[in-house]
Protein backbone atom coordinates (compact mmCIF):
# COMPACT_ATOMS: atom_id res chain seq x y z
CA UNK A 1 0.00 0.00 0.00
CA UNK A 2 1.48 3.37 -0.96
CA UNK A 3 1.54 6.16 1.61
CA UNK A 4 2.42 9.83 1.87
CA UNK A 5 4.32 11.35 4.79
CA UNK A 6 3.82 15.06 5.35
CA UNK A 7 6.17 17.21 7.45
CA UNK A 8 4.60 20.57 8.19
CA UNK A 9 5.88 23.06 9.00
CA UNK A 10 9.60 22.64 8.50
CA UNK A 11 11.30 24.32 11.44
CA UNK A 12 14.42 26.50 11.74
CA UNK A 13 14.30 27.71 8.15
CA UNK A 14 13.36 31.19 6.96
CA UNK A 15 9.71 31.10 5.93
CA UNK A 16 7.09 28.40 5.80
CA UNK A 17 7.10 25.17 3.85
CA UNK A 18 5.84 21.62 3.91
CA UNK A 19 7.54 18.40 2.92
CA UNK A 20 5.67 15.39 1.59
CA UNK A 21 7.18 11.96 1.11
CA UNK A 22 5.28 9.33 -0.86
CA UNK A 23 6.02 5.68 -0.13
CA UNK A 24 5.24 2.87 -2.54
CA UNK A 25 3.68 -0.48 -1.76
CA UNK A 26 7.00 -1.83 -0.50
CA UNK A 27 7.45 1.10 1.86
CA UNK A 28 10.23 2.58 -0.26
CA UNK A 29 10.39 6.29 -1.04
CA UNK A 30 8.73 6.90 -4.39
CA UNK A 31 8.66 10.70 -4.37
CA UNK A 32 9.60 13.55 -2.05
CA UNK A 33 8.68 17.17 -2.48
CA UNK A 34 9.18 20.53 -0.86
CA UNK A 35 6.01 22.60 -1.05
CA UNK A 36 6.26 26.35 -0.69
CA UNK A 37 2.85 27.22 0.66
CA UNK A 38 2.98 31.01 0.69
CA UNK A 39 2.08 33.22 -2.23
CA UNK A 40 3.82 36.61 -2.22
CA UNK A 41 3.01 38.15 -5.61
CA UNK A 42 5.74 40.80 -5.66
CA UNK A 43 6.25 40.47 -9.40
CA UNK A 44 2.62 41.42 -10.05
CA UNK A 45 1.89 44.12 -7.52
CA UNK A 46 5.04 46.05 -8.39
CA UNK A 47 3.63 46.63 -11.87
CA UNK A 48 2.62 50.26 -12.33
CA UNK A 49 4.98 51.58 -9.65
CA UNK A 50 7.83 54.00 -10.49
CA UNK A 51 11.05 52.05 -10.97
CA UNK A 52 12.82 54.13 -8.30
CA UNK A 53 10.48 52.59 -5.72
CA UNK A 54 11.64 49.08 -6.60
CA UNK A 55 14.55 48.86 -4.13
CA UNK A 56 12.27 49.82 -1.24
CA UNK A 57 9.43 47.59 -2.43
CA UNK A 58 11.46 44.49 -3.16
CA UNK A 59 13.46 44.85 0.06
CA UNK A 60 10.20 43.99 1.81
CA UNK A 61 10.32 40.57 0.18
CA UNK A 62 12.35 39.47 3.14
CA UNK A 63 13.17 40.50 6.69
CA UNK A 64 16.42 38.54 6.77
CA UNK A 65 18.07 39.51 3.49
CA UNK A 66 16.61 42.90 2.49
CA UNK A 67 20.13 44.11 1.78
CA UNK A 68 20.54 41.53 -0.98
CA UNK A 69 17.33 42.69 -2.66
CA UNK A 70 18.34 46.32 -2.24
CA UNK A 71 21.66 45.61 -3.95
CA UNK A 72 20.20 43.62 -6.87
CA UNK A 73 17.32 46.04 -7.33
CA UNK A 74 19.56 49.10 -7.39
CA UNK A 75 21.82 47.37 -9.88
CA UNK A 76 18.79 46.83 -12.11
CA UNK A 77 17.97 50.54 -11.68
CA UNK A 78 21.60 51.49 -12.52
CA UNK A 79 21.09 49.51 -15.72
CA UNK A 80 17.88 51.44 -16.46
CA UNK A 81 19.78 54.71 -15.92
CA UNK A 82 22.64 53.38 -18.09
CA UNK A 83 25.19 54.68 -15.59
CA UNK A 84 28.39 53.35 -14.14
CA UNK A 85 28.35 54.19 -10.46
CA UNK A 86 31.30 56.03 -8.83
CA UNK A 87 34.15 53.82 -7.51
CA UNK A 88 33.50 54.77 -3.88
CA UNK A 89 29.83 53.82 -4.20
CA UNK A 90 30.74 50.48 -5.73
CA UNK A 91 33.10 49.66 -2.88
CA UNK A 92 30.61 50.77 -0.26
CA UNK A 93 27.89 48.63 -1.79
CA UNK A 94 30.33 45.71 -1.72
CA UNK A 95 30.97 46.25 1.99
CA UNK A 96 27.24 46.35 2.69
CA UNK A 97 26.66 43.17 0.67
CA UNK A 98 29.46 41.34 2.49
CA UNK A 99 28.19 42.48 5.90
CA UNK A 100 24.85 40.98 4.92
CA UNK A 101 26.62 37.77 3.94
CA UNK A 102 28.40 37.58 7.30
CA UNK A 103 25.31 38.15 9.42
CA UNK A 104 23.15 35.82 7.33
CA UNK A 105 25.70 32.99 7.30
CA UNK A 106 26.16 33.46 11.05
CA UNK A 107 22.41 33.12 11.55
CA UNK A 108 22.34 29.98 9.43
CA UNK A 109 25.31 28.29 11.05
CA UNK A 110 25.06 29.29 14.70
CA UNK A 111 21.35 29.80 15.28
CA UNK A 112 19.72 27.39 12.86
CA UNK A 113 22.15 24.55 12.16
CA UNK A 114 24.53 24.33 15.12
CA UNK A 115 21.90 22.64 17.32
CA UNK A 116 21.86 19.73 14.84
CA UNK A 117 25.62 19.69 14.45
CA UNK A 118 26.44 19.92 18.13
CA UNK A 119 23.65 17.90 19.73
CA UNK A 120 22.95 15.39 16.96
CA UNK A 121 19.86 14.61 14.95
CA UNK A 122 18.64 12.01 17.42
CA UNK A 123 18.69 14.30 20.43
CA UNK A 124 15.53 15.52 22.15
CA UNK A 125 13.88 18.19 19.95
CA UNK A 126 13.18 20.22 23.10
CA UNK A 127 16.92 20.51 23.65
CA UNK A 128 17.97 20.79 20.00
CA UNK A 129 17.95 24.58 19.83
CA UNK A 130 20.23 27.48 20.68
CA UNK A 131 19.62 26.92 24.37
CA UNK A 132 20.89 23.37 23.99
CA UNK A 133 23.95 24.76 22.24
CA UNK A 134 24.42 27.18 25.09
CA UNK A 135 24.45 24.32 27.60
CA UNK A 136 26.84 22.24 25.51
CA UNK A 137 29.16 24.94 24.25
CA UNK A 138 28.38 28.38 25.69
CA UNK A 139 31.30 29.98 23.86
CA UNK A 140 29.91 28.90 20.49
CA UNK A 141 26.48 30.34 21.31
CA UNK A 142 28.01 33.65 22.39
CA UNK A 143 30.26 33.73 19.33
CA UNK A 144 27.28 33.28 17.03
CA UNK A 145 25.34 36.06 18.65
CA UNK A 146 28.34 38.38 18.58
CA UNK A 147 29.27 37.66 14.96
CA UNK A 148 25.74 38.29 13.77
CA UNK A 149 25.58 41.47 15.82
CA UNK A 150 28.79 42.70 14.20
CA UNK A 151 27.43 42.04 10.69
CA UNK A 152 24.24 43.89 11.57
CA UNK A 153 26.19 46.71 13.14
CA UNK A 154 28.17 47.24 9.92
CA UNK A 155 24.90 47.37 7.96
CA UNK A 156 23.47 49.84 10.44
CA UNK A 157 26.58 52.03 10.39
CA UNK A 158 26.51 52.22 6.62
CA UNK A 159 22.80 52.13 5.90
CA UNK A 160 21.41 54.01 8.88
CA UNK A 161 19.37 51.02 10.04
CA UNK A 162 19.93 47.29 10.08
CA UNK A 163 16.68 46.25 8.41
CA UNK A 164 15.57 47.83 5.10
CA UNK A 165 18.28 50.51 4.93
CA UNK A 166 17.53 53.14 2.25
CA UNK A 167 21.13 54.24 1.81
CA UNK A 168 21.75 52.43 -1.48
CA UNK A 169 20.05 54.34 -4.30
CA UNK A 170 19.91 54.07 -8.09
CA UNK A 171 23.25 55.44 -9.30
CA UNK A 172 25.23 54.74 -6.13
CA UNK A 173 24.68 55.47 -2.45
CA UNK A 174 22.91 58.39 -0.79
CA UNK A 175 25.77 59.64 1.40
CA UNK A 176 29.53 59.27 1.45
CA UNK A 177 31.22 57.37 4.24
CA UNK A 178 32.83 59.40 7.00
CA UNK A 179 36.23 58.51 8.40
CA UNK A 180 34.66 58.04 11.84
CA UNK A 181 32.22 55.46 10.53
CA UNK A 182 34.93 53.68 8.55
CA UNK A 183 37.11 53.48 11.63
CA UNK A 184 34.21 52.26 13.76
CA UNK A 185 33.65 49.39 11.33
CA UNK A 186 37.34 48.57 11.06
CA UNK A 187 37.57 48.31 14.85
CA UNK A 188 35.02 45.45 14.74
CA UNK A 189 36.85 43.34 12.19
CA UNK A 190 39.65 41.77 14.31
CA UNK A 191 37.17 40.43 16.86
CA UNK A 192 34.86 39.15 14.13
CA UNK A 193 37.72 37.47 12.27
CA UNK A 194 38.91 35.84 15.46
CA UNK A 195 35.43 34.40 16.02
CA UNK A 196 35.21 33.24 12.40
CA UNK A 197 38.61 31.52 12.49
CA UNK A 198 37.88 29.93 15.87
CA UNK A 199 34.55 28.59 14.63
CA UNK A 200 36.09 27.29 11.43
CA UNK A 201 38.78 25.44 13.38
CA UNK A 202 36.16 24.01 15.74
CA UNK A 203 33.93 22.88 12.88
CA UNK A 204 36.79 20.97 11.31
CA UNK A 205 37.11 18.97 14.52
CA UNK A 206 33.40 18.08 14.31
CA UNK A 207 33.50 17.00 10.66
CA UNK A 208 34.66 13.39 11.17
CA UNK A 209 31.41 12.77 13.08
CA UNK A 210 29.38 13.56 9.99
CA UNK A 211 30.69 11.14 7.40
CA UNK A 212 27.31 9.45 7.11
CA UNK A 213 25.46 12.74 6.67
CA UNK A 214 28.03 14.05 4.21
CA UNK A 215 27.49 10.88 2.20
CA UNK A 216 23.68 11.03 2.21
CA UNK A 217 22.68 14.69 2.59
CA UNK A 218 21.97 15.85 -0.93
CA UNK A 219 25.06 14.17 -2.31
CA UNK A 220 24.44 13.92 -6.05
CA UNK A 221 25.88 15.23 -9.29
CA UNK A 222 24.57 18.59 -10.45
CA UNK A 223 25.66 21.77 -12.15
CA UNK A 224 26.84 24.78 -10.12
CA UNK A 225 25.97 28.38 -10.99
CA UNK A 226 27.57 31.50 -9.55
CA UNK A 227 29.10 34.84 -10.32
CA UNK A 228 32.89 34.91 -10.60
CA UNK A 229 35.21 37.85 -11.06
CA UNK A 230 36.68 38.40 -14.54
CA UNK A 231 39.81 36.55 -13.38
CA UNK A 232 37.81 33.71 -11.89
CA UNK A 233 37.98 34.53 -8.17
CA UNK A 234 35.19 34.74 -5.60
CA UNK A 235 32.67 37.47 -6.40
CA UNK A 236 29.49 38.55 -4.63
CA UNK A 237 28.60 41.95 -6.03
CA UNK A 238 29.44 42.06 -9.71
CA UNK A 239 31.21 39.80 -12.13
CA UNK A 240 30.15 37.25 -14.71
CA UNK A 241 28.14 34.05 -14.63
CA UNK A 242 29.88 30.67 -14.63
CA UNK A 243 28.38 27.18 -14.76
CA UNK A 244 30.41 24.09 -13.92
CA UNK A 245 29.23 20.52 -14.26
CA UNK A 246 29.58 17.69 -11.76
CA UNK A 247 32.96 16.72 -13.23
CA UNK A 248 34.31 20.22 -12.88
CA UNK A 249 34.10 21.14 -16.56
CA UNK A 250 33.17 24.74 -17.22
CA UNK A 251 30.06 24.75 -19.41
CA UNK A 252 29.46 28.48 -19.42
CA UNK A 253 31.92 31.21 -18.53
CA UNK A 254 32.24 34.98 -18.63
CA UNK A 255 28.51 35.27 -19.35
CA UNK A 256 27.27 38.83 -18.72
CA UNK A 257 24.51 38.69 -16.08
CA UNK A 258 22.21 40.51 -18.53
CA UNK A 259 22.23 37.30 -20.61
CA UNK A 260 20.91 35.15 -17.77
CA UNK A 261 17.76 34.23 -19.72
CA UNK A 262 19.90 32.42 -22.28
CA UNK A 263 21.08 30.08 -19.52
CA UNK A 264 18.13 29.82 -17.18
CA UNK A 265 14.60 28.62 -17.84
CA UNK A 266 11.87 28.62 -15.19
CA UNK A 267 9.44 25.73 -14.82
CA UNK A 268 6.30 25.87 -12.70
CA UNK A 269 4.95 22.88 -10.79
CA UNK A 270 1.40 22.64 -9.45
CA UNK A 271 2.52 21.57 -5.96
CA UNK A 272 4.52 24.68 -5.03
CA UNK A 273 4.58 28.46 -5.37
CA UNK A 274 8.33 28.23 -5.76
CA UNK A 275 9.48 28.21 -9.38
CA UNK A 276 11.92 25.58 -10.60
CA UNK A 277 14.74 27.22 -12.55
CA UNK A 278 16.88 24.94 -14.74
CA UNK A 279 19.80 25.18 -17.14
CA UNK A 280 18.13 25.63 -20.49
CA UNK A 281 20.55 23.70 -22.71
CA UNK A 282 19.91 20.54 -20.65
CA UNK A 283 16.15 21.10 -20.38
CA UNK A 284 13.77 20.48 -17.49
CA UNK A 285 14.30 18.80 -15.08
CA UNK A 286 17.71 17.48 -16.25
CA UNK A 287 19.17 20.98 -16.01
CA UNK A 288 19.32 20.83 -12.22
CA UNK A 289 21.90 23.11 -10.64
CA UNK A 290 22.87 24.44 -7.25
CA UNK A 291 23.74 27.99 -6.19
CA UNK A 292 25.00 29.59 -2.99
CA UNK A 293 28.17 29.09 -0.95
CA UNK A 294 28.78 25.52 -2.17
CA UNK A 295 28.45 26.55 -5.82
CA UNK A 296 30.51 29.71 -5.37
CA UNK A 297 33.42 27.81 -3.85
CA UNK A 298 33.13 24.97 -6.36
CA UNK A 299 33.33 27.46 -9.20
CA UNK A 300 36.58 29.15 -8.15
CA UNK A 301 40.20 28.31 -7.48
CA UNK A 302 40.89 31.33 -5.30
CA UNK A 303 38.98 33.58 -2.94
CA UNK A 304 41.49 36.37 -3.21
CA UNK A 305 42.05 36.92 0.54
CA UNK A 306 44.75 35.19 2.60
CA UNK A 307 43.01 33.16 5.30
CA UNK A 308 39.97 32.36 3.15
CA UNK A 309 42.29 30.95 0.51
CA UNK A 310 43.80 28.57 3.04
CA UNK A 311 40.30 27.50 4.06
CA UNK A 312 39.27 27.16 0.40
CA UNK A 313 42.19 24.83 -0.26
CA UNK A 314 41.06 22.68 2.68
CA UNK A 315 37.47 22.79 1.40
CA UNK A 316 38.56 21.40 -1.97
CA UNK A 317 40.20 18.49 -0.12
CA UNK A 318 36.84 17.31 1.21
CA UNK A 319 36.53 15.23 -1.94
CA UNK A 320 39.21 13.46 -3.93
CA UNK A 321 38.37 15.17 -7.18
CA UNK A 322 35.79 17.35 -8.88
CA UNK A 323 33.40 19.86 -7.34
CA UNK A 324 32.21 19.04 -3.82
CA UNK A 325 28.95 17.19 -4.41
CA UNK A 326 27.47 16.85 -0.92
CA UNK A 327 25.02 19.55 0.08
CA UNK A 328 26.06 18.90 3.69
CA UNK A 329 29.19 20.90 2.92
CA UNK A 330 27.16 24.09 2.47
CA UNK A 331 27.91 24.52 6.18
CA UNK A 332 31.64 24.34 5.55
CA UNK A 333 31.39 26.72 2.61
CA UNK A 334 29.51 29.25 4.74
CA UNK A 335 32.30 29.35 7.28
CA UNK A 336 34.88 29.91 4.53
CA UNK A 337 32.76 32.74 3.15
CA UNK A 338 32.38 34.40 6.54
CA UNK A 339 36.17 34.57 6.77
CA UNK A 340 36.38 35.89 3.22
CA UNK A 341 33.66 38.47 3.84
CA UNK A 342 35.44 39.91 6.86
CA UNK A 343 38.85 39.95 5.20
CA UNK A 344 37.41 41.65 2.14
CA UNK A 345 35.47 44.24 4.16
CA UNK A 346 38.72 45.20 5.86
CA UNK A 347 40.54 45.43 2.54
CA UNK A 348 37.81 47.54 0.92
CA UNK A 349 37.62 49.95 3.85
CA UNK A 350 41.37 50.45 3.94
CA UNK A 351 41.24 51.71 0.38
CA UNK A 352 41.17 55.55 0.63
CA UNK A 353 38.70 55.65 -2.28
CA UNK A 354 35.88 54.65 0.08
CA UNK A 355 35.95 58.13 1.61
CA UNK A 356 35.52 59.88 -1.75
CA UNK A 357 32.69 62.40 -1.64
CA UNK A 358 31.39 61.50 -5.10
CA UNK A 359 29.10 58.57 -4.50
CA UNK A 360 26.18 58.95 -6.86
CA UNK A 361 25.71 59.11 -10.63
CA UNK A 362 22.53 61.01 -11.51
CA UNK A 363 20.49 60.32 -14.60
CA UNK A 364 16.98 59.68 -15.80
CA UNK A 365 16.02 56.36 -17.25
CA UNK A 366 17.80 55.75 -20.52
CA UNK A 367 16.51 52.32 -21.45
CA UNK A 368 13.37 50.27 -21.09
CA UNK A 369 14.85 47.17 -19.55
CA UNK A 370 17.14 46.77 -16.54
CA UNK A 371 18.76 43.66 -15.07
CA UNK A 372 20.60 43.52 -11.74
CA UNK A 373 22.40 40.41 -10.53
CA UNK A 374 24.30 39.92 -7.29
CA UNK A 375 25.22 37.04 -5.03
CA UNK A 376 22.91 36.93 -2.03
CA UNK A 377 24.10 34.76 0.89
CA UNK A 378 22.02 31.91 -0.50
CA UNK A 379 23.07 32.34 -4.14
CA UNK A 380 22.51 34.23 -7.36
CA UNK A 381 19.77 36.85 -7.06
CA UNK A 382 18.29 38.26 -10.26
CA UNK A 383 16.09 41.36 -10.57
CA UNK A 384 14.77 42.09 -14.06
CA UNK A 385 12.48 45.05 -14.78
CA UNK A 386 10.81 46.60 -17.82
CA UNK A 387 9.49 50.18 -17.74
CA UNK A 388 7.46 52.47 -19.97
CA UNK A 389 8.18 56.03 -21.13
CA UNK A 390 7.04 57.39 -17.76
CA UNK A 391 9.40 55.14 -15.82
CA UNK A 392 6.56 52.96 -14.56
CA UNK A 393 7.17 49.26 -14.14
CA UNK A 394 5.41 47.15 -16.77
CA UNK A 395 6.98 43.75 -15.99
CA UNK A 396 9.11 42.19 -13.26
CA UNK A 397 10.95 38.92 -12.96
CA UNK A 398 12.69 37.96 -9.72
CA UNK A 399 14.70 34.76 -9.46
CA UNK A 400 15.75 34.31 -5.87
CA UNK A 401 18.55 32.07 -4.69
CA UNK A 402 16.24 29.63 -2.96
CA UNK A 403 14.36 29.22 -6.26
CA UNK A 404 17.53 28.22 -8.09
CA UNK A 405 18.03 25.47 -5.52
CA UNK A 406 14.46 24.17 -5.70
CA UNK A 407 15.16 21.13 -7.88
CA UNK A 408 18.25 20.32 -5.85
CA UNK A 409 16.36 20.58 -2.55
CA UNK A 410 13.71 18.17 -3.81
CA UNK A 411 16.38 15.72 -4.87
CA UNK A 412 18.15 16.09 -1.54
CA UNK A 413 14.94 15.37 0.40
CA UNK A 414 14.34 12.29 -1.74
CA UNK A 415 17.86 11.02 -1.07
CA UNK A 416 17.70 11.52 2.68
CA UNK A 417 14.21 10.05 2.96
CA UNK A 418 15.29 7.01 0.96
CA UNK A 419 18.32 6.56 3.20
CA UNK A 420 16.53 6.87 6.52
CA UNK A 421 13.01 5.47 5.95
CA UNK A 422 13.15 1.78 6.73
CA UNK A 423 10.26 -0.40 5.74
CA UNK A 424 7.92 2.56 5.81
CA UNK A 425 8.60 3.13 9.50
CA UNK A 426 8.90 6.66 10.72
CA UNK A 427 11.35 7.77 13.31
CA UNK A 428 12.11 11.12 14.87
CA UNK A 429 15.67 10.79 13.60
CA UNK A 430 14.49 10.39 10.01
CA UNK A 431 12.26 13.45 10.21
CA UNK A 432 15.04 15.49 11.76
CA UNK A 433 17.41 14.53 8.99
CA UNK A 434 14.87 15.42 6.31
CA UNK A 435 14.50 18.85 7.89
CA UNK A 436 18.25 19.14 8.34
CA UNK A 437 19.03 18.50 4.70
CA UNK A 438 16.80 21.43 3.81
CA UNK A 439 18.67 23.58 6.31
CA UNK A 440 21.92 22.79 4.49
CA UNK A 441 20.60 24.98 1.68
CA UNK A 442 19.48 27.60 4.23
CA UNK A 443 16.36 28.33 2.20
CA UNK A 444 14.80 31.72 2.69
CA UNK A 445 11.17 31.22 1.80
CA UNK A 446 9.86 34.57 2.85
CA UNK A 447 11.10 35.58 6.29
CA UNK A 448 8.01 37.69 6.72
CA UNK A 449 6.83 36.11 9.93
CA UNK A 450 7.54 33.34 12.33
CA UNK A 451 5.44 31.94 15.11
CA UNK A 452 6.87 32.42 18.58
CA UNK A 453 7.95 29.37 20.50
CA UNK A 454 8.23 25.83 19.24
CA UNK A 455 6.50 25.16 15.97
CA UNK A 456 4.32 22.09 15.83
CA UNK A 457 5.55 19.33 13.60
CA UNK A 458 2.96 16.95 12.24
CA UNK A 459 3.59 13.87 10.15
CA UNK A 460 0.68 12.33 8.38
CA UNK A 461 0.48 9.03 6.60
CA UNK A 462 -2.09 8.71 3.86
CA UNK A 463 -3.06 5.73 1.77
CA UNK A 464 -3.70 5.91 -1.95
CA UNK A 465 -7.41 6.49 -1.31
CA UNK A 466 -6.65 9.59 0.70
CA UNK A 467 -7.39 8.02 4.08
CA UNK A 468 -5.39 9.23 7.05
CA UNK A 469 -3.62 6.18 8.45
CA UNK A 470 -1.38 7.69 11.07
CA UNK A 471 -0.63 11.10 12.51
CA UNK A 472 2.33 11.98 14.67
CA UNK A 473 2.54 15.37 16.32
CA UNK A 474 5.68 16.83 17.90
Amino acid at each position, binding site marked *: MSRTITIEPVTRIEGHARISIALDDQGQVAEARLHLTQFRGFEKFCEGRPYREMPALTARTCGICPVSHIIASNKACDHLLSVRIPPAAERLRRVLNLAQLVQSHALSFFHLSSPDLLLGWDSDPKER*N*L*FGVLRQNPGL*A*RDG*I*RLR*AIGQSIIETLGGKRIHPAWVVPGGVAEPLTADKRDAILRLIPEALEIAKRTYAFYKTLLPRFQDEAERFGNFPSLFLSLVSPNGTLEHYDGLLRIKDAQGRILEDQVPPEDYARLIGEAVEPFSYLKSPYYKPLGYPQGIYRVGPLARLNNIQSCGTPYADVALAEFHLLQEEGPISSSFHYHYARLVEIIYGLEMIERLLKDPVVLDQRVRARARSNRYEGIGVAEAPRGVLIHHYRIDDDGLITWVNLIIATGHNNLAMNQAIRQVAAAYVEGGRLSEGMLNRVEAVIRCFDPCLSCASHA*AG*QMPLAIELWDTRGRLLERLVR
Partner: protein
Amino acid sequence: MLIIGYGNPLRGDDAVGLLAAERLLDWIERQGDIPGIEVIARPCLTIELAANLAGHRRALFIDAALAGPAGAIRRRRLQPATERGPLPHVLSPTELLGWCQWLYGVAPRSSLITIAGASFNYAEGRLSPLVESALARLLKRLGLKQRPPQPA
Protein backbone atom coordinates in the same frame (compact mmCIF):
# COMPACT_ATOMS: atom_id res chain seq x y z
CA MET B 1 22.40 52.43 31.75
CA LEU B 2 20.89 50.98 28.60
CA ILE B 3 17.63 52.34 27.20
CA ILE B 4 15.92 50.22 24.54
CA GLY B 5 12.86 51.68 22.81
CA TYR B 6 11.07 49.39 20.43
CA GLY B 7 7.96 49.16 18.26
CA ASN B 8 6.66 48.91 14.73
CA PRO B 9 7.12 52.25 12.92
CA LEU B 10 4.29 51.43 10.52
CA ARG B 11 1.64 50.75 13.16
CA GLY B 12 0.64 54.11 14.61
CA ASP B 13 1.05 54.25 18.38
CA ASP B 14 2.98 50.97 18.43
CA ALA B 15 5.96 53.10 17.36
CA VAL B 16 6.02 55.10 20.60
CA GLY B 17 8.91 53.15 22.16
CA LEU B 18 10.95 53.33 18.98
CA LEU B 19 10.28 57.07 18.64
CA ALA B 20 11.20 57.66 22.28
CA ALA B 21 14.59 56.05 21.68
CA GLU B 22 15.13 57.91 18.41
CA ARG B 23 14.36 61.26 20.04
CA LEU B 24 16.68 60.44 22.92
CA LEU B 25 19.39 59.63 20.42
CA ASP B 26 18.82 62.94 18.61
CA TRP B 27 19.02 64.76 21.92
CA ILE B 28 22.19 62.95 22.98
CA GLU B 29 23.78 63.69 19.61
CA ARG B 30 23.20 67.39 20.16
CA GLN B 31 24.47 67.23 23.75
CA GLY B 32 27.51 65.12 22.93
CA ASP B 33 28.06 61.64 24.31
CA ILE B 34 26.74 61.03 27.82
CA PRO B 35 29.09 58.55 29.53
CA GLY B 36 27.40 55.41 30.78
CA ILE B 37 24.21 55.91 28.76
CA GLU B 38 23.50 53.79 25.69
CA VAL B 39 20.25 54.17 23.75
CA ILE B 40 19.03 51.68 21.17
CA ALA B 41 15.99 52.00 18.88
CA ARG B 42 14.66 48.79 17.35
CA PRO B 43 11.51 47.50 15.62
CA CYS B 44 11.62 44.47 17.92
CA LEU B 45 13.80 42.75 20.50
CA THR B 46 16.24 40.17 19.15
CA ILE B 47 18.82 37.94 20.79
CA GLU B 48 21.78 40.15 19.76
CA LEU B 49 20.63 42.77 22.28
CA ALA B 50 21.54 40.37 25.10
CA ALA B 51 25.20 41.30 24.59
CA ASN B 52 24.37 44.99 24.94
CA LEU B 53 22.39 44.32 28.11
CA ALA B 54 25.24 42.35 29.65
CA GLY B 55 27.41 45.45 29.57
CA HIS B 56 25.10 47.53 31.79
CA ARG B 57 24.01 47.44 35.41
CA ARG B 58 20.59 48.94 34.69
CA ALA B 59 18.25 48.76 31.70
CA LEU B 60 15.05 50.49 30.72
CA PHE B 61 12.71 49.16 28.03
CA ILE B 62 10.12 51.47 26.44
CA ASP B 63 7.18 49.98 24.58
CA ALA B 64 3.56 50.66 23.66
CA ALA B 65 0.74 48.96 25.57
CA LEU B 66 -2.59 47.74 24.27
CA ALA B 67 -4.37 48.02 27.62
CA GLY B 68 -5.19 51.15 29.58
CA PRO B 69 -6.46 54.63 28.78
CA ALA B 70 -4.64 56.17 25.81
CA GLY B 71 -1.51 58.00 26.90
CA ALA B 72 -1.29 56.30 30.32
CA ILE B 73 2.32 55.76 31.36
CA ARG B 74 3.11 52.72 33.46
CA ARG B 75 6.37 51.46 34.88
CA ARG B 76 7.10 48.03 36.25
CA ARG B 77 10.16 46.07 37.36
CA LEU B 78 11.25 43.15 35.23
CA GLN B 79 12.81 39.86 36.22
CA PRO B 80 14.69 37.64 33.77
CA ALA B 81 12.56 34.79 32.46
CA THR B 82 13.51 31.48 33.99
CA GLU B 83 11.69 29.20 31.55
CA ARG B 84 13.79 28.25 28.60
CA GLY B 85 12.62 27.30 25.16
CA PRO B 86 13.54 27.51 21.51
CA LEU B 87 14.67 30.89 20.34
CA PRO B 88 11.90 32.78 18.54
CA HIS B 89 12.64 35.62 16.12
CA VAL B 90 11.18 38.18 18.49
CA LEU B 91 11.66 38.22 22.25
CA SER B 92 9.85 39.89 25.13
CA PRO B 93 11.94 42.00 27.54
CA THR B 94 11.85 39.28 30.20
CA GLU B 95 12.88 36.60 27.69
CA LEU B 96 15.71 38.81 26.50
CA LEU B 97 16.85 39.33 30.09
CA GLY B 98 16.67 35.57 30.59
CA TRP B 99 18.91 34.99 27.57
CA CYS B 100 21.28 37.65 28.87
CA GLN B 101 21.49 35.82 32.20
CA TRP B 102 22.00 32.41 30.52
CA LEU B 103 24.55 33.65 28.01
CA TYR B 104 26.62 36.01 30.11
CA GLY B 105 25.81 35.07 33.70
CA VAL B 106 24.46 38.52 34.53
CA ALA B 107 21.40 40.58 33.71
CA PRO B 108 20.89 44.25 34.52
CA ARG B 109 18.28 45.50 36.98
CA SER B 110 15.52 46.39 34.56
CA SER B 111 12.21 48.17 34.19
CA LEU B 112 9.64 48.43 31.46
CA ILE B 113 7.87 51.70 30.74
CA THR B 114 4.76 51.43 28.61
CA ILE B 115 2.57 54.08 27.06
CA ALA B 116 -0.95 52.91 26.27
CA GLY B 117 -1.81 53.48 22.62
CA ALA B 118 -5.04 54.70 21.07
CA SER B 119 -4.59 53.49 17.50
CA PHE B 120 -2.49 50.71 16.06
CA ASN B 121 -3.66 51.13 12.47
CA TYR B 122 -1.27 51.79 9.58
CA ALA B 123 0.48 55.11 10.14
CA GLU B 124 4.19 55.64 9.67
CA GLY B 125 5.80 57.27 12.69
CA ARG B 126 2.65 59.29 13.43
CA LEU B 127 1.24 59.07 16.94
CA SER B 128 -2.25 59.91 18.10
CA PRO B 129 -2.39 63.23 20.05
CA LEU B 130 -2.73 61.70 23.53
CA VAL B 131 0.21 59.36 22.95
CA GLU B 132 2.32 62.13 21.44
CA SER B 133 1.75 64.20 24.52
CA ALA B 134 2.51 61.23 26.79
CA LEU B 135 5.76 60.69 24.94
CA ALA B 136 6.75 64.33 25.54
CA ARG B 137 5.98 63.86 29.27
CA LEU B 138 8.04 60.70 29.38
CA LEU B 139 11.04 62.30 27.68
CA LYS B 140 10.87 65.18 30.12
CA ARG B 141 10.73 62.72 33.00
CA LEU B 142 13.80 60.98 31.57
CA GLY B 143 15.71 64.24 31.74
CA LEU B 144 15.11 66.03 28.49
CA LYS B 145 14.42 69.56 29.69
CA GLN B 146 13.54 70.88 26.27
CA ARG B 147 11.40 69.05 23.81
CA PRO B 148 13.64 67.81 21.02
CA PRO B 149 12.66 68.54 17.42
CA GLN B 150 10.43 66.01 15.69
CA PRO B 151 12.26 63.60 13.44
CA ALA B 152 11.84 64.42 9.74
